[in-house]
C-alpha cells in the first residue's frame, strides 16, 4: 500500500511529523501514531476528539487553552478511549449495511450500557433526566388525582423537556461510534443535531410563553391560572441543580471547540431556560399576592424575551454547522490568503471550486480543484496545499489537480 515519507516540509517545522503511519490509508492526513496524546494532563485530547490546531503556534486563533470542563486538575478519562476499539480502518460493507437495520431495542440497550460506563457528563445528564422524569410523573399523578390543571400542564412541559434531554443523552453516547460504510464521517453530527433540536424547542417555548402572556393580557382576572408555588419552587430547584452540573457551559456565547461543546451548551441552556421560567412564575405569584395587576403578563413577557435572547446565538451556531457553512472560527481573510498563496505557486494557474464546511466544531472538511500547468510532479503541489490548509485547521482536504 502507499507509504509516504516526506523528508522536508516547505513551510518549516510544524510540530507534527508526517511519517509513515500504521494506518496507511491515511496518506495525506496528518495523524499522530496511535496512543500518543498531545497534552499530558488531559486525556481528552486523544486522536479522535481533539483539536489539533493548538499544536501549531502559527495558528491564527491560537489561545492559551484550558478546556472549560477542566475544573479539576489531573483528570484523566481513559475510559473514554478504552471503551471503543482502536482507530482502525473504516469498514465498508459488512457492518455498514447492518447499521440501518438495527432494532430500537438493541440501540436502547447499548445506550444504557454506555451510560453506565460513560464519562462524567453523561452520568450527570442521566441523573438529571431520571430526576426530571420522576418529578414529572409525581406531578402528573397528583394533578390527575386532585384535578388541578396547572400541575398537569407543568408535568407535560417537563415531559417534553425530558424527551429532548434523552435525545441529547443518546447523541452523547452514540457519537463515539466508529465511522462505518453508511456514515463515513462518523456519528459526531448527532451532537450538533441534538443541540439544534434543543435550541428549536427553546425557541418554541419562548414563543408559547409570549402567546400565554398575550392570552393573560386579553382575559380578565377571574380566569387566570394561579400557579402553585410549591411546584414552581421544586421545579426551580431541580433545574438549578442541572445548571450546577453543567456550570462550565453557563454562558450565552461560547467558542465551540469540540462536538461535545455544542451538546452540553444546549443542555445547560435548556435547564437554564426552565429555571428562568419557574423563577418567573414564582415572581408573578409573589407580585400578584402583593396586588400588582398584570404582574403575570409582565413576568411572562420578560421570561419569553430572556429565553429568546439567550438561545439565539446557539441556534445560529448550530444552524450554521448544519447548513454546511464555512468553519466559523476561520476568518474569510485567512481563506483568501491561502488561496493567494496557492495561486502564487509556479505550477498552479488557477484554483477553482474551493469549498469548505464543518462536520462538527473542530473538524473541518474541504475540497479544492487546482489547474496545474504542464506535466509536472503533482506531489509537491499536493503536499504544499495540504500543509497550508492544515494550518487553518482543515484536516480532511481533497485536492483535484487538473492538467491544462
Amino acid at each position: 500500500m502507499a507509504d509516504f515519507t516526506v523528508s522536508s516540509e516547505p513551510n518549516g517545522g510544524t510540530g507534527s511529523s508526517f511519517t509513515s503511519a500504521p494506518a496507511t490509508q491515511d496518506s495525506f492526513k496528518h495523524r499522530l501514531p496511535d496512543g500518543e496524546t498531545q497534552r499530558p494532563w488531559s486525556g481528552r485530547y486523544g486522536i479522535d476528539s481533539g483539536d489539533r490546531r493548538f499544536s501549531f503556534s502559527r495558528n491564527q486563533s491560537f489561545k492559551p487553552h484550558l478546556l472549560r470542563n477542566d475544573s479539576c486538575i489531573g483528570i484523566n478519562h481513559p475510559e473514554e478511549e478504552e471503551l471503543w476499539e482502536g482507530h482502525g480502518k473504516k469498514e465498508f460493507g459488512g457492518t455498514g449495511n447492518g447499521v440501518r437495520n438495527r432494532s430500537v431495542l438493541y440501540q436502547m440497550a447499548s445506550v444504557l450500557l454506555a451510560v453506565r460506563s460513560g464519562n462524567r457528563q453523561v452520568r450527570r445528564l442521566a441523573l438529571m433526566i431520571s430526576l426530571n422524569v420522576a418529578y414529572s410523573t409525581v406531578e402528573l399523578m397528583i394533578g390527575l388525582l386532585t384535578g388541578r390543571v396547572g400541575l398537569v400542564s407543568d408535568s407535560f412541559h417537563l415531559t417534553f423537556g425530558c424527551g429532548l434531554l434523552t435525545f441529547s443523552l443518546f447523541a452523547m453516547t452514540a457519537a463515539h461510534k466508529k465511522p462505518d460504510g453508511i456514515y463515513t464521517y462518523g456519528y459526531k453530527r448527532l451532537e450538533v443535531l441534538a443541540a439544534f433540536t434543543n435550541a428549536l424547542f427553546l425557541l418554541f417555548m419562548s414563543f408559547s410563553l409570549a402567546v400565554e402572556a398575550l392570552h393573560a393580557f386579553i382575559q380578565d382576572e377571574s380566569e387566570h391560572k394561579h400557579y402553585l408555588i410549591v411546584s414552581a419552587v421544586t421545579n426551580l430547584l431541580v433545574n438549578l441543580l442541572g445548571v450546577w452540573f453543567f456550570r462550565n457551559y453557563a454562558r450565552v456565547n461560547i467558542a465551540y471547540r469540540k462536538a461535545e461543546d455544542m451538546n452540553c451548551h444546549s443542555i445547560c441552556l435548556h435547564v437554564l431556560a426552565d429555571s428562568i421560567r419557574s423563577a418567573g412564575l414564582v415572581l408573578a405569584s409573589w407580585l400578584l399576592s402583593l396586588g400588582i395587576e398584570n404582574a403575570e403578563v409582565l413576568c411572562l413577557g420578560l421570561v419569553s424575551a430572556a429565553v429568546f435572547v439567550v438561545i439565539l446565538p446557539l441556534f445560529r451556531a448550530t444552524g450554521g454547522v448544519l447548513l454546511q457553512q464555512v468553519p466559523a472560527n476561520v476568518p474569510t481573510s485567512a481563506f483568501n490568503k491561502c488561496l493567494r498563496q496557492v495561486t502564487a505557486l509556479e505550477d498552479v494557474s488557477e484554483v477553482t471550486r474551493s469549498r469548505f464546511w464543518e462536520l462538527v466544531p473542530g473538524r473541518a472538511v474541504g475540497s479544492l480543484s487546482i489547474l496545474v500547468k504542464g506535466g509536472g510532479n503533482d506531489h509537491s503541489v499536493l503536499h504544499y496545499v495540504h500543509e497550508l490548509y492544515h494550518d487553518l485547521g482543515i484536516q480532511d482536504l481533497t485536492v483535484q489537480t487538473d492538467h491544462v
Partner: protein
Amino acid sequence: MTDSRPYNMSLPIVYGGIVNCNFVIKPWICQLLSKILVVLNEKYDRDAFLGCKCVEELVKMGILQLKMLIYSVFEALFEEPQCELKRIQMEDQAPSSSQLVEVNIDVPSTVATVSGSKVCGGAICDFSDSKTNIKDATERSSSMQKLLLAVLLCIIFMAVEVIGGIKANSLAILTDAAHLLSDVAAFAISLFSLWASGWEATPRQSYGFFRIEILGALVSIQLIWLLAGILVYEAILRIINDSGEVNGWLMFTVSAFGLVVNIIMAMMLGHEHGHAHHGGHDDHEHSDHGNSHDHDHDENHHNHHHEHTEEHFHFHGVSVTTHNPLSSEDPKEPLLNHSEAKSVSKATKRNINVHSAYLHVLGDSIQSVGVMVGGAIIWYKPEWKIIDLICTLIFSVIVLATTIKMLRNILEVLMESTPREIDATRLERGLCDLDGVVAIHELHIWAITVGKVLLACHVTITPEANAEYLLDSVIGYIKREYNISHVTIQIERQQ
C-alpha cells in the same frame, strides 16, 4: 376555564375494523370510487359543456385526492409497496384523462464531455451549472406558486371561520381557525425555505443554500409533533375538567368543513394539474423547451409516469414532459426490476418542502376525520365521552407515524450519510477495477439535499499510469454509473 374546544376526537371501533380488514376494504373503496368516476365520465363526455367539464374535473380531482389521501395514510403507516403502486397508478390516471399527447425528446446528455465540466470560472463558483440552475429555478417557482396559493387559501378560510365564529359566538370554530393558523405557519416555513434555497452561494456558504430546505422541513415536522402533543394535552385537560355538554352536531359540521378545506389544499399541493396554472406557464414554456430535455436513455420507460417535479405545459393539447437529470435513482434501473424502480423513484421525487407541507395537511385531515367520526358518535350517543382521550391518542400516534419516514430521510441527509440509493462498496470495487488504479481511500459520498449528491475520494495509481487520463476515466465512470456529477478526486501516485 370554560370548554375551549367542545368537540373531541373520537375513534369508534369501526376504524379499528377498517384497519384490520384493509386488504378487503381498499380494493372495495377503489372500485366504488372508480365506478363514480366512470359514471361521471359517461355523463359529461361531450365537449360542448365546458362549464360542466370544469366542475366534473374538479369533482374528479377531489375524489382522486381523497383516494390518494387514504392511500398516503396507509402507505405511510404500513409501508406496503402495493399502496404506493396503487397511488402511483392513480396519479397516472389523472393526466391521461385530459387526453394529452406526449412528446418526449431524447437529447443526449451534454455533460458527456468530462473535460468541459471540470473547469468552472472563479474560485467560488455556483454549485450547479447553468442547466440545472434553470431547471431548479423552474421547479422552485412552480412549488412556490403552489405553496403561495395554499397559503392564500388558508388565510381566506381562516378569515371566514373567524368571522363566522364571532358571529355565532362559538369557541369551537374559533379554535379551528387557530388550527388553520398553524397550517399557515407550516406553509410559511416551507415557502421561506424554498425561496431561500435559490440564493447564490457566498464565501461563507460555499455550497449555496440548498440545505435550508432540509432544515425548514425539520422545523416543520417539529411543529407537527408539537401540535400533536398540544392536542393530547388538551384532551387530558378536558377529561379533568369534565366540561359537561358537548355539541356533537357542531363538532361534525366544523370538522367536515375543515376536511373539505384540507382536501382542496392537498389537491393543490399534491398534483401539478391546476386550472389556475395555465396562465402562469405559457410564458415559461419557450425558455424551458430548450433546456429541460436532458435525460438518459432509460427515460423512454418513464414517459408515462409523471413525477411531481415535472412540468406539464397545456398548450394546444401538446404536453411536453421533462425529467430531472439530477435524479440519483437512475442508477438503480439496471439493478431492480421495473415496477419497483419506478415506485422508488416516484416516491422520493416530490420537493421536500412541498412534501412536508403536504404531510401537515395530511395530518390535519386525519384529525378532521377523527373529529367528524367522534362528532357523529356523540351526536348519536352523548354519554360516550371517555373514549375521546383514547381516540385522541391513537389519532395523534397515526399522525406522528406518517412523519417518521420523512424524518428519517432528513436525518440521513443532516448526518452526511451515504445516500440510500448508492452502494458505496460497489462503487469502490468498480473503481478499483479500472486499469491503473491501485486503491481507493477516504471515500465520502454525501448529499447536500435530497437529490444532489457529492463525492470525494483519494485514488492511488500505479507509478507509470497517465494521471490525466485516469482522472477522466474515474470521473466518467462515476458520472455514468451513479450519475454523481459533483466529484472531487485526488490522484496520488504510488511510490
